[in-house]
C-alpha cells in the first residue's frame, strides 16, 4: 500500500471521477422524479428546467384525496402482490425442501420444467391466460391477478428455496430425527429457521416482481382491480400528461421497493441469479 501510494492516489482520483459519472447517470432520473413531484405546476411546466422552487404537496394531495383516489389502487396492488407472494413462498418452502432433500431420476427434468415456466415470455403467457380467465370470469378481479402473478412467482420461489435448502448440511436434520423428530418436524423446527434469510429474500423479490407488474394488470384488470402502475399509465391522456401527479405516483411505486430491495442486499445476488451465484 505504501510503496506506490502516490500512484495509488492518482488512480483513486480517476476512479472516483468515473464513479461520479456512473452515479450521475444512475441517480439523476430518480432525483429528478422525486424533485418534480414536489414542484408547483408552473415550475414543472417551465421550458428551462427549474432546480430551485417552493415545494408543494399538491400532487400527492391530488392523488390521495378527491374522486378517483389512489387508495383503491394501492389496496389492489398490496393484495395482488402480497397474497401471490405469500402463497408462493409458503408452497415453495415445502417444495424447495422436498426437492433439495430427494434424489430421483428425472430431477433434472423437473428443475428444467420449473425454470422454463419462470422464464416464459409474459407476452406469450398472457394469450392463453386471457381466454382462460375470460371463461372462468376472472377478468377484472384481484384473484385473477394473484393467479397471474403466481405463474412467475411460484416457479421462482420453488427454485430459489431449493437453492437455499440445498446449502444446508442434512446432518442437523438427521440429528434431530435420531432424537425422535419426524421428518416434517426436522424440516419445520430445524431446517426452516436456518433459511430465514432465504425466505425473506425470496419473499421480497416475489413482492417486487408482482408489485412492479404492468402488462398483466393492464390486460386482466378492470375498474375493480387496477393496480398502481395502471393508475400511473392512466395519467397519459389525449389532452396531455399530468407530470406532477405522474412523478408523484412514480415516487409512491418506487420508494418502498428500493427500500425493501436494499434491505436484502446481502442475499440479492443469490436471489436474482436464481441461486447460481453466492452473494458478496
Amino acid at each position, binding site marked *: 500500500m505504501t510503496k506506490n501510494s502516490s500512484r495509488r492516489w492518482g488512480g483513486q482520483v480517476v476512479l*472516483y471521477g468515473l*464513479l461520479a459519472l456512473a*452515479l450521475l447517470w*444512475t*441517480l439523476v*432520473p430518480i432525483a*429528478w422524479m422525486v424533485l418534480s413531484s414536489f414542484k408547483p405546476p408552473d415550475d414543472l411546466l417551465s*421550458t428551462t428546467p427549474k432546480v430551485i422552487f417552493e415545494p408543494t404537496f399538491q400532487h400527492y394531495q391530488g392523488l390521495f384525496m378527491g374522486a378517483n383516489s389512489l387508495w383503491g389502487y394501492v389496496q389492489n396492488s398490496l393484495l395482488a402482490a402480497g397474497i401471490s407472494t405469500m402463497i408462493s413462498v409458503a408452497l*415453495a418452502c*415445502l*417444495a424447495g*425442501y*422436498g426437492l433439495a*432433500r*430427494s434424489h430421483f431420476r428425472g430431477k433434472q427434468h423437473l*428443475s428444467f420444467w420449473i*425454470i*422454463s*415456466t419462470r*422464464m416464459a*415470455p409474459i*407476452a*406469450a403467457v*398472457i*394469450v*392463453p391466460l*386471457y*381466454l*382462460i380467465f*375470460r*371463461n372462468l370470469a376472472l377478468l377484472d378481479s384481484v384473484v385473477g391477478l394473484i393467479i397471474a402473478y*403466481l*405463474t412467475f412467482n*411460484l*416457479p421462482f420461489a420453488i427454485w430459489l428455496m431449493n437453492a437455499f435448502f*440445498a*446449502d444446508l448440511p442434512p446432518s442437523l436434520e438427521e440429528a434431530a430425527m435420531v432424537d425422535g423428530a419426524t*421428518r416434517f418436524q426436522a*424440516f419445520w423446527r430445524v431446517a426452516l429457521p436456518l433459511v430465514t434469510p432465504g425466505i425473506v429474500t425470496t419473499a421480497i423479490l416475489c413482492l417486487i416482481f408482482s408489485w412492479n407488474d*404492468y*402488462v398483466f394488470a393492464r390486460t386482466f384488470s378492470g375498474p375493480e382491480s387496477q393496480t398502481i*402502475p395502471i393508475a400511473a399509465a392512466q395519467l*397519459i391522456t389525449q389532452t396531455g400528461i399530468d*407530470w406532477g401527479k405522474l*412523478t408523484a405516483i*412514480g415516487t409512491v*411505486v*418506487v420508494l418502498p*421497493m*428500493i427500500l425493501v*430491495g436494499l434491505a436484502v*442486499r446481502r442475499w440479492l*445476488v443469490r436471489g*436474482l*441469479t436464481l*441461486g*447460481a*451465484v*453466492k*452473494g458478496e
Partner: protein
Amino acid sequence: MSAARTDKGRGLNRLLVPSFGVRMMLPALLLLASLSIFPFLFIVWMSFNEVSPIGGLSFEFVGLENWVNLFADPDVRSSWMISGIYFVATVGLEMILGIAIALLVHEIVWGKNLAISLLLMPMFIAPVIVGLLGRFLVDPTYGLYAWVLKTTDLYTQNILGSQGAALAAVILMDVWEWTPLITIIVLAGLSSMPQEIFEAAMVDGANYWQRLRHMVMPFISGVVIVALLIRSMDAIRFFDIIFITTNGGPADSTKIIPIRLYETAFRFFELGYAAAIGLGMLAFSILIANLFLRILARQGLAR
C-alpha cells in the same frame, strides 16, 4: 433418504404412500402444473386455430396457417429484426457497462457500500415507471434530458417521435434499469476472488490490464456467463418500457416481437396468430433456460 422412515421395509406401503419428498413437493407442483401445462397445451391448440374473442369466443381450425404466417409475414419478420437489434444492443451495453462499473467499484477504497447501494437503485423500479420517467426526461417541451440535448445542440428534434432516436432512447432506458443487475452479479464474482493470487502477480510486476486479462477475467468468466443468461431471459420476458413509451412507433421502428404479439392479440384480436408468435418466443427462452441449466451443472456454480 427419500422414503419416509416409517415406511421402511413395508413394500406395499412404499408403493402406495408417496415418499416424504414427493408429499412436500406435491401442493406446489400441482398448482404449478395447472398454471403452466394447461395454458401451454391451450396456446399450442390456439396456434392451429383462428381464434376470435369478439361476440363470444370462436375457434376455427386452420391447420398450419398461423405458423406459415409466422415465417412469411414481412411485418413479423421485421419485428424479429428489431427485436434482435434491441436485444443485442441492450444486453450488450448492459454487459459492457455492468462489468466496467463492477471493476471500478471493486477497486475503490472509501464509500464502497454506499456506492453499491446507490448504483443498484434503478433495478428495483417498475419497468413501466422507467418508461414513464424516460418519457418525462425526453419530453420535447418539458424534458430535462431533451433540454440538455437542445441547449448543447446535440439533438433538437422530438426524441420519441423520430425513428432512430426513439429506438436509441428505449434502449438506453432499458440499459439504465438493468446495468446494475450485471454490476452486482459481477461484483459478487470479484469479491470471491482470492487476494493472494493478485498480490503475487503484482510482485511479478504485472500491470492492471495484464492482471485483468489473465487473472480476473478467467476467474469471473463463470459468473459473467450466469449474468448474461439471467439478463437474456428477462430481456425476452419484459416489454413494458417500449409498451408505455412508443408502443412500437414511430413507423414500427421500435416494434419488437412482444409488442407485435400484444397488438395482434388485443388490438386486432387474432389470438390464434398471436399464439403462434408467442410459441416462437417461448422457443427462444427455453433454449436460453436450457443453456443456463447446462452451465450450472457443468461449472457447479450452484454451490
